[in-house]
């Protein structure tokens, strides 16, 4: 099993620090109006001159951070934020989903771009081609235009839609002719997915649709799923790690229900899982060496001995004191003078009431001393000698008052002594009985093993059934509407009713006779559902005894048959879904198993309802868009289905789209293969660059004068741009 798993285990990558590269040289571009291309993406900012082969690309995040160590304020962009751990929390992006909102951040991002390009002239003297979102809100466009024209003094600014440009790049017309391809562009972006039909080289933007589900939402969904599945995971899973997992392990299922049906079987689920190993820390167990252990043991022994010596000494002291007292008192007794009053006085000084008390004390002391002596000598309790009760047999009439008192005392003592002796005898009898029983059982076991085993198993089953019944009864009581709960309420009501006795009986003079019969009180046991009755504990004890006997002697009864393991058994499915590692397995508990999540997350593109987003999925949107065109146009559209954008690199996407489109089209219509952009992330920029080098580019931009006249929101209508507020 280990070999198969090691190929499945992947380690979370550690982030690497960015390297420093000097900014570009500006010399090549100075005083030439080479178009400047900026692909302003929600996740990455790509910028460069149109004559460059590929853009510089960096995550579109700004962080203004004041470093604590040297008290420096820093302005970091993109990857550089990884160098400062505190800067990550301060990161701001200009985009919020699909809408450009934060213009401070936008300004800083553009500053970075121009600094990297090495621009040192006053003002940007290049026509700029920038991307904006499909039908971007006018507010965003207005502020961007304002920034570009007023802050950076660009001569002209053109907006375009990135996916259309990517499509252009992959379906480039022969040089000289105008762009007139047809196709259906499915663009996967960070916070949305859009479908744009293109006819005759012009985007029919009124029929385009945007689904508010993109990489950002998918990553959040995956993170949520992992957090739900591993609620007690030792380390925190960050969204960066979640997006790494999304990119590497998730794919589209061509037929999602079929995939689910196969995963239902635990074996398949196990085979399809990917194990992600998170870093973990092995706690250092201080292993004391052998010497240390022996040293500690010796120390403890010494301490014990010292204590024992102390105890012995104190005992000796007490004994000596008692002996002294005894001697003193006996001397006193012997030196008793004839004068009674003097004797009484002496006694009272000592604290005794009369002669008898003195004698008592002396006797007690003697016994104590003797016992202590004996203990010291041989450390055993001496045999309880039967004390003598001489006065009991003597009839009352013969004794005087004192004697009667003595007799009563002695009777009590004898009764106590007899009771104790009886108890002792009973205990011994019980022990003998138990031994006899055990011997019998052993005999039975040896002679007739099967019967004995069968008998014990039956007992175990009955006890387990009783426990289950009890559990079921408890569950039924907790449910308000169950029959048991309603019966209980009826009982309570009848107990509390004022009319407990029927009218006839009351007339006859009978009163409420509840409690006369002992069985009546049993009703309170039933009512009090919360009490854990002692019966349960007895049952568990019995069960344990039986199981231990069976485990010892019956080879076929294993630990799996015990009650404990049966109740805590987890089904094979759950263990395949979320394997449990043992308590001490630190490496195992820092693992995440991805099985159903691999397809579940990508499936949300086709039904966002799974994740709570109330929107049509990709398949439905495609269907509704195609429905608005005529048959001829539809045919032209589906001949060339084009997918672009970073997330289009998920495996399985093309097959899935083909499988979604094929059923909704008439069978004779030719559905071309789904084409993916040659370079999904950079093709938009490349398309823009190649477009900027054509003549058409200069006709579609908004110049500075036009900006002054129209304001920031108007743009010129052309095939690659938006058409809201367009001239």
């Amino acid at each position: 099993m280990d070999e198969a798993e090691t190929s499945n285990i992947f380690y979370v990558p550690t982030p690497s620090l960015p390297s420093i590269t000097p900014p570009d040289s500006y010399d090549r571009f100075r005083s030439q109006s080479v178009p400047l291309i900026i692909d302003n993406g929600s996740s990455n900012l790509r910028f460069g001159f149109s004559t460059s082969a590929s853009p510089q690309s960096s995550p579109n995040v700004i962080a203004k951070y004041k470093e604590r160590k040297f008290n420096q304020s820093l302005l970091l962009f993109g990857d550089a934020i990884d160098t400062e751990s505190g800067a990550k929390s301060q990161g701001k992006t200009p985009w919020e989903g699909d809408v450009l909102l934060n213009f401070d951040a936008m300004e800083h991002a553009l500053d970075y771009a121009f600094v990297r390009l090495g621009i040192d002239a006053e003002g940007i003297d290049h026509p700029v081609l920038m991307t904006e979102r499909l039908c971007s809100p006018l507010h965003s466009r207005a502020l961007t235009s304002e920034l570009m024209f007023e802050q950076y003094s660009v001569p002209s600014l053109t907006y375009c839609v990135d996916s259309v440009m990517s499509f252009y790049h992959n379906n480039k017309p022969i040089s000289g002719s105008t762009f007139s391809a047809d196709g259906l562009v499915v663009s996967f972006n960070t916070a949305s997915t859009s479908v744009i039909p293109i006819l005759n080289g012009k985007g029919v933007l009124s029929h385009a649709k945007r689904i508010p589900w993109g990489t950002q939402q998918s990553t959040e969904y995956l993170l949520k799923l992992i957090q739900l599945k591993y609620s007690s995971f030792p380390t925190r899973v960050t969204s960066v790690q979640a997006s790494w997992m999304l990119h590497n392990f998730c794919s589209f299922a061509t037929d999602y229900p079929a995939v689910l049906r196969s995963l239902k079987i635990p074996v398949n689920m196990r085979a399809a899982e990917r194990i992600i190993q998170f870093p973990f820390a092995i706690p250092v167990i201080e292993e004391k060496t052998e010497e240390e252990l022996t040293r500690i043991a010796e120390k403890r022994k010494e301490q014990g001995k010292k204590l024992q010596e102390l105890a012995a000494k104190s005992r000796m002291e007490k004994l000596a004191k008692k002996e002294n007292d005894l001697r003193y008192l006996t001397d006193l007794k012997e030196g008793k003078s004839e004068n009674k009053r003097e004797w009484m006085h002496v006694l009272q000084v000592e604290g005794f009431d009369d002669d008898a008390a003195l004698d008592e004390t002396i006797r007690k002391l003697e016994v104590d001393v003797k016992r202590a002596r004996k203990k010291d000598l041989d450390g055993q309790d001496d045999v309880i000698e039967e004390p003598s009760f001489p006065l009991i047999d003597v009839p009352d009439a013969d004794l005087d008052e004192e004697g009667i008192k003595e007799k009563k005392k002695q009777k009590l003592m004898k009764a106590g002594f007899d009771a104790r002796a009886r108890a002792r005898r009973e205990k011994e009898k019980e022990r003998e009985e138990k031994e006899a029983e055990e011997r019998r059982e052993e005999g039975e076991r040896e002679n007739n093993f099967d019967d004995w085993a069968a008998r014990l198993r039956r007992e175990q089953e009955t006890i387990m059934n009783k426990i289950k019944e009890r559990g079921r009864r408890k569950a039924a009581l907790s449910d308000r509407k169950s029959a048991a709960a309603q019966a209980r309420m009826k009982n309570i009501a009848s107990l509390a009713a004022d009319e407990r006795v029927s009218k006839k009986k009351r007339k006859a003079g009978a009163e409420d006779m509840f409690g006369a019969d002992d069985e009546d009180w049993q009703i309170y046991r039933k009512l009090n559902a919360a009490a854990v009755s002692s019966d349960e504990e007895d049952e568990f004890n019995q069960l344990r005894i039986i199981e231990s006997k069976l485990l010892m002697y019956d080879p076929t009864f294993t630990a799996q048959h015990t009650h404990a393991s049966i109740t805590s058994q987890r089904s094979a499915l759950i263990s395949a879904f979320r394997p449990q590692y043992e308590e001490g397995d630190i490496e195992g508990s820092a693992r995440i198993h991805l099985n159903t999540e691999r397809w579940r997350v990508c499936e949300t593109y086709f039904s966002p309802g799974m994740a709570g987003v109330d929107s049509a999925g990709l398949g439905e949107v495609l269907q509704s868009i195609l429905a608005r065109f005529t048959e001829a146009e539809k045919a032209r559209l589906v001949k060339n289905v084009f997918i672009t954008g970073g997330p289009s690199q998920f495996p399985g996407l093309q097959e899935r789209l083909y499988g979604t489109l094929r059923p909704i089209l008439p069978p004779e219509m030719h559905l071309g293969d789904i084409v993916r952009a040659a370079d999904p992330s950079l093709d938009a920029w490349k398309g823009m660059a190649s477009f900027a080098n054509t003549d058409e580019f200069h006709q579609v931009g908004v110049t500075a004068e036009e900006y002054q006249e129209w304001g920031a929101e108007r743009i010129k209508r052309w095939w690659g741009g938006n058409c809201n507020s367009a001239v």
Partner: protein
Amino acid sequence: MPPKGTTRKKAANDGSTTHTPTLSEQLSYLHSPRPFKNPNYTKNTNRRTKNLKTVLGQEREKERVERERRRQERDSQAMDIDEVKKELVEVNEEISTYLSIEAPPSVLPQRHYCDITGLEAPYTDPRTGLRYHDKSVYELIKNLSPSAAKDYLAARGVNPVVR
């Protein structure tokens, strides 16, 4: 005035020279000169960055106003009633804003997937509302705490009101 013809040096570490610049300081471009910025342009610093809700609300307003305006324009220009209708249709088609592009809610019947495992879920637990795949998953659900059950439901987008 920055000298022309020289390549821009890296963002220099100005000020303190008591320590070698760290990596992050070298990457910071806070102090790099930006001559391309127009010093005369003062950004309206009082303007707050509007949040998404206000921006979308503005868009909606603008769209409504625009539609009204166009309708009135067509009304005043059109002679024929049929022409008006056709042009209205055209007008409505042409206006495409950020909000109109948004995909409509789904009309297909929803498939039930298990909230815990992700497999198909024919059953629903009446107490918590979670969908589950089979009885072993149900055992798991029975032992969930109410907050955990609520988290599962929130992942699906169902936010139960206080029960």
